[in-house]
């Protein structure tokens, strides 16, 4: 906008005839801006309706009672449903184990690639995107074919596979975090002060990577809690599989659980992003003080 104003000012100094010629252009521009914001309003309202109406519908449906009134009984009934606590506990255990495996594998590897093999960064980028190309349903078919029995008989085979599914997202978050810090200087400083590799990674790199680690964790947890394909084909009852199996019995409770799943993820993400915001503000404060 500034530049256009400047152009107009320049034109103004060149004399009255030009100024007269410029005037209508300016008002046409204003008209166009007005029509753009109209258009933007329509787009935003339609999108909002598309995303909010199903939420509202699900909320209403799960609050409805058979007599036609409204009550929270469907939400209150969730914990006492048969199999729900077992499913929830399995999902939570899988989420924890998957997060540990993923971070344990990806953090050292990404740091190593960034530090020692920066030329391989593009290649590594390509390798970590491969799991997106392989449909999970195909992957689980292969896994169930080749996995030895001792792995097939434990639900943690799923955690091992989820680590593969999470790899593209986790690497991308870590990569963004690593690009944002001066990794080489940090490591050299820590090493020259006598820090060993383990403590450098744990006490210098990890705290600096906090944001990247957090978003990697959130993405992994969200993926594990929502994954249906592999769990159902491996015949383990995680929360999504339970919702699916239970729906035949009580649609109201299933819808209530579905809504709850969405809201919980949203709250977790909001908490994480506000944590991030606080950190940015604090950094800004430190810079200002310095």
């Amino acid at each position, binding site marked *: 906008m500034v*530049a256009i104003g400047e152009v107009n000012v320049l034109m103004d100094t060149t004399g009255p005839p030009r100024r007269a010629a410029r005037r209508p252009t300016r008002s046409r521009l204003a008209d166009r801006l007005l029509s753009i914001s109209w258009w*933007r309003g329509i787009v935003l309202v339609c999108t909002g309706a598309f995303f909010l109406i*199903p939420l509202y519908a699900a909320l209403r449906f799960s609050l409805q009672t058979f007599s036609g009134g409204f009550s929270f009984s469907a939400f209150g009934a969730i914990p006492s449903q048969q199999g729900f606590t077992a499913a929830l506990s399995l999902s939570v255990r899988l989420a924890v184990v998957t997060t540990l495996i993923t971070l344990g594998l990806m953090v050292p590897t990404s740091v190593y690639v960034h530090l020692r093999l920066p030329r391989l960064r593009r290649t590594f980028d390509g390798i970590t995107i491969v799991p997106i190309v392989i*449909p999970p349903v195909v992957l689980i078919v*292969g896994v169930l074919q080749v996995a030895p029995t001792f792995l097939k008989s434990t639900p943690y085979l799923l955690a091992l*596979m989820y680590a593969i599914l999470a790899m593209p997202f986790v690497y991308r978050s870590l990569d963004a975090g690593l690009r944002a810090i001066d990794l080489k200087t940090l490591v050299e400083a820590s090493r020259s002060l006598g820090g060993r590799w383990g403590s450098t990674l744990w006490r210098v790199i990890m705290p600096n990577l906090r944001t990247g680690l957090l978003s990697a964790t959130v993405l992994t947890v969200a993926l594990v809690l929502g994954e*249906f394909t592999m769990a159902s084909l491996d015949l383990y009852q995680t929360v999504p599989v339970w*919702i699916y199996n239970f729906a035949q019995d009580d649609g109201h409770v299933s819808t209530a659980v579905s809504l709850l799943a969405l809201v919980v993820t949203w709250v977790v993400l909001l908490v994480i992003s506000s944590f991030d915001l606080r950190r940015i503000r604090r950094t800004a404060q430190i810079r200002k003080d310095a």
Partner: protein
Amino acid sequence: MTTAAPEQVPSRRRARQAFAAAAGLVPFGIYTVLFLGVPVVAVVVSAFRSPSGGWTLHNVWIASHGIYAHGFVMTIEMALLTSVGPGIAGLVVAHAVLTSRGRILRRVVSTASGVFAQFGGVPLAFLFIATLGSTGLLTGWLKAAGFDPYDHGFDLYTFFGVSIVYTYFQLPLMVLIVTPALEGLRPAWREAASGLGARSWEYWRYVGGPVLLPSFLGGVLLLFGSALSAYATAQALTSGSIPLTAIQIGSFLNGNVIPGEQNVGKALGVGLILVIGVAMVFYSMLQKRASRWLQ
């Protein structure tokens, strides 16, 4: 780390150094090969083997005919519809949000698209059954307004219905992908263009469009892949009544198998990977053209 320039290091030593450097990648490499490489190779190999052992093309023949061929056609149509449509819509929405002045709006949209993009599968199916199912809320509203969608050929449990449901996670995914690219469009370019007398469409045709095209295509490719391998949503909505390839593969694991055709599911899997491969080749060709256009 030595400070010597690489040219001065003897080649053997350099090779040894490279080897030592690669050693740090060993755990990652082993994990990826074991849990990604081996299963995929196993699927590809078994696609060409008969249940009694020995090589055969029988599985591939079955997988490319009849209901399975129909499944591939449906899957590709569905993936195209739900990647191009929500892709364009996502671009428009992201643009509308970014050019609006509300900072709160931006924050809400960015966290919301993170949540909705992850939100697929069974819970999503329930949301839409409560909305557009035959007794859903929106269906009720439309009926009250004198328009019964179920009398006009609409059905949530069909191809068109499922593609509306897919939009619920595809559109936010596109918003997430394309927002950084839109943020890269500098306001100064637009000002320069209009300063030179370009109209709005000319700006998009000659400046904004070419800059955005690569990321837009990349986003659409990602949406295509995600629609292609989506299993949970369609399974939960239709219980397999729409013949999508991913669901057909799943039904082989569930034991719905004609004797002698145990490996057809694996041939279908290879087919799915091939479809994504072809899409990626197209993408890189377009990408190359787009980058030439940029120069």
